[in-house]
């Protein structure tokens, strides 16, 4: 007694078709399920992203948006640096630092490469150590430890001031500008500054007569006194040799005599060279004018 509206009669023995049976079995296969659940969404996402980025203008717009966003964050007042403060430096060094950094404030702290800037500041001759940091309130804080000048070095290029380790501190216009510092000269002298300083210290008793140290042949020192006297020191054991000379001087008043060279290069055989006609002039000591040598 089914209705006569043309609807199909109910199926008596419904059975899946071969195709639907196979599809159902395929659907129940775990690998296939995993492929559908993970593989297809991933593929769709990757495909959509690739299609979107594939277009030149869209890609440019994407990058523009990114940079704009980045800039707007960088330009926030919290990240701006307004001024620079330099501690522990003399006015000339401060000026040098300002020149080489050449920052026009205000600037975003993202644009400051502190490590690079520290390298630049530390690269200055007069600077031994530099620390840079951005302190709250937008201040670029630079703490500088300057090199302490120890000797004046006369080289082929002119005069320079070196610190106790032999690093160049600054150039010097004339020797007279720093008469308090001892003088060294000669090629390679700048590499042996600590030794030179110890030699100067040893020469304390005759300090008023010392003109300077000359590096000879980049291997040994000559101590130059006034009256063109020279003490030739050996390559090794220079300090000991100098002490022997000082001891001789104190005992025998040797350097006050008319001697041009005290040759200590061979420690077993110290040699003296007398000035020409020295015997004639004994007792008639001649004073030489002490004075600065023009640089």
């Amino acid at each position: 007694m089914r209705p006569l509206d043309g609807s199909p009669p109910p199926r008596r023995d419904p059975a899946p078709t071969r195709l639907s049976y196979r599809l159902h079995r395929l659907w129940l296969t775990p690998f296939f399920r995993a492929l559908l659940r993970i593989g297809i969404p991933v593929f769709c996402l990757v495909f959509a992203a690739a299609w979107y980025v594939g277009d030149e203008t869209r890609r440019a717009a994407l990058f523009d948006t990114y940079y704009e966003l980045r800039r707007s964050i960088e330009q926030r007042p919290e990240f701006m640096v307004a001024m620079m403060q330099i501690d522990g430096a003399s006015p000339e060094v401060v000026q040098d630092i300002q020149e080489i950094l050449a920052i026009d404030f205000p600037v975003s702290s993202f644009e400051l490469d502190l490590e690079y800037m520290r390298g630049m500041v530390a690269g200055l001759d007069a600077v031994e150590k530099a620390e840079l940091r951005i302190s709250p309130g937008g201040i670029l804080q630079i703490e500088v430890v300057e090199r302490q000048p120890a000797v004046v070095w006369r080289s082929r290029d002119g005069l320079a001031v070196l610190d106790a380790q032999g690093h160049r501190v600054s150039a010097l216009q004339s020797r007279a500008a720093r008469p308090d510092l001892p003088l060294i000269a000669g090629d390679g002298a700048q590499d042996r500054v600590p030794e030179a300083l110890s030699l100067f210290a040893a020469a304390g008793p005759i300090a008023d007569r010392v003109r300077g140290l000359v590096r000879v042949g980049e291997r040994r020192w000559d101590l130059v006194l006034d009256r063109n006297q020279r003490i030739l020191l050996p390559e090794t054991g220079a300090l000991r040799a100098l002490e022997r000379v000082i001891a001789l001087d104190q005992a025998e008043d040797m350097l006050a005599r008319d001697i041009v060279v005290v040759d200590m290069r061979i420690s077993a055989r110290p040699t003296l060279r007398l000035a020409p006609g020295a015997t004639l002039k004994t007792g008639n000591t001649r004073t030489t004018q002490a004075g600065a040598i023009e640089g």
Partner: protein
Amino acid sequence: MTDLYQSQRAMRRMRKQAMDRGVIAILDVGSSKIGCLVLRFDGPDAFRGGDGVGALAGQSSFRVIGAATTRSRGVRFGEIHAMQETERAIRTAVQAAQKMAQTRVDHVIACMAGAQPRSYGLEGAIDLADSTVREEDVARVLSACEVPDFGDGREVLHAHPVNFALDHRSGLNDPRGQIGNRLACDMHVLTVESAVAQNLLYCIKRCDLELAGVASSAYAAGLSSLVEDEQELGAACIDMGGGATGVSIFIKKHMIYADSVRLGGDHITADISKGLQVPMATAERIKTFHGGVVATGMDDREMIEIGGDTGDYEHDRRSVSRAELIGIMRPRVEEILEDVRARLDAAGFEHLPSQQIVLTGGGSQIPGLDGLAARILGQQVRLGRPLRVQGLPQAATGPAFASAVGLCLFAAHPQDEWWDFEIPAERYPARSLKRAVRWFRDNW
């Protein structure tokens, strides 16, 4: 016999594969319904390893995770007679069971009710080479059994070694390791029509399923509905299906005889349909709701509307008393039981120590059947239901599912069959390399 040996071993390998994968399907192709169960082998027993049968006879190793039945079509007398229809029905059942289990099954164990099973008792004996029985000796004595001519187009379905005898000691279950001179064995072989079996295999193959085993449904029903002491002492299981009634006799936990009567519940329905002049569907409904085999005075007064949709008022308003219905059903049920009786007599059932008879199958639900069966078959008759397995839906626990549940047990723990033993070297064809290898292995 080598062909059979290879194909049966291939099925055993399939079963092993399915066990490794953990999922196997049970397919009961009957004349009235096609049932499919999906088993998952993940119980505590599944990973136990070792020898012997585990807890609950191996049933705790599996769980039923999908069950479906569909009305059978294209099957008559437990045999396929319209393959396309049967294939569709199998597809329906398998798909529904898969859907319930939410998993895909590739391996299936099937059973069939018809195909004219025939039982043979075989015996063989060998002299042992050395006095201890080894596994090869068991294989040799099994292949020494004298195989009768089964006839054309018949195939072996089961070959169970039932009994071993060593010298004068008989009744051994497992002779391995025992000492004696002469080993004899009794083997029960069940053959079926090979064409019918091929049809079933073809249908299953068409559904993209791999066959992992075939069993006789009478055997499977006996496995599930006979309790342990009945199997031990001797009992017959009558599986009253739709198109065929299976008979199997068990003793000492082995099936020693199986047969099938080509009559079943469908014939009762057909009788009702003819007798009351109603369609088969109505007849089936009347049979299941009002059927019976013992009429009482009350039944004369109980009128059943049998209906109809011809448009003729007189015809559509017919009613019939329940006594009349019983009058139609009873002769047919008696006929079935008489046939079963004849089969039991032919098998020598009366010589068994215990003659318990268990009625199961969908047809055994007719009210009053046990009383009628007691008159025909003997006093010890009971109605059997399959034992309960884990996860089986309530709807599938009735006697109609006896063979399906029996197949579950068969899948979980099959009894040793002839092909579970290595084929002895002398059965290989001469000059084969395998034979040489075997000979070396046996002798060194």
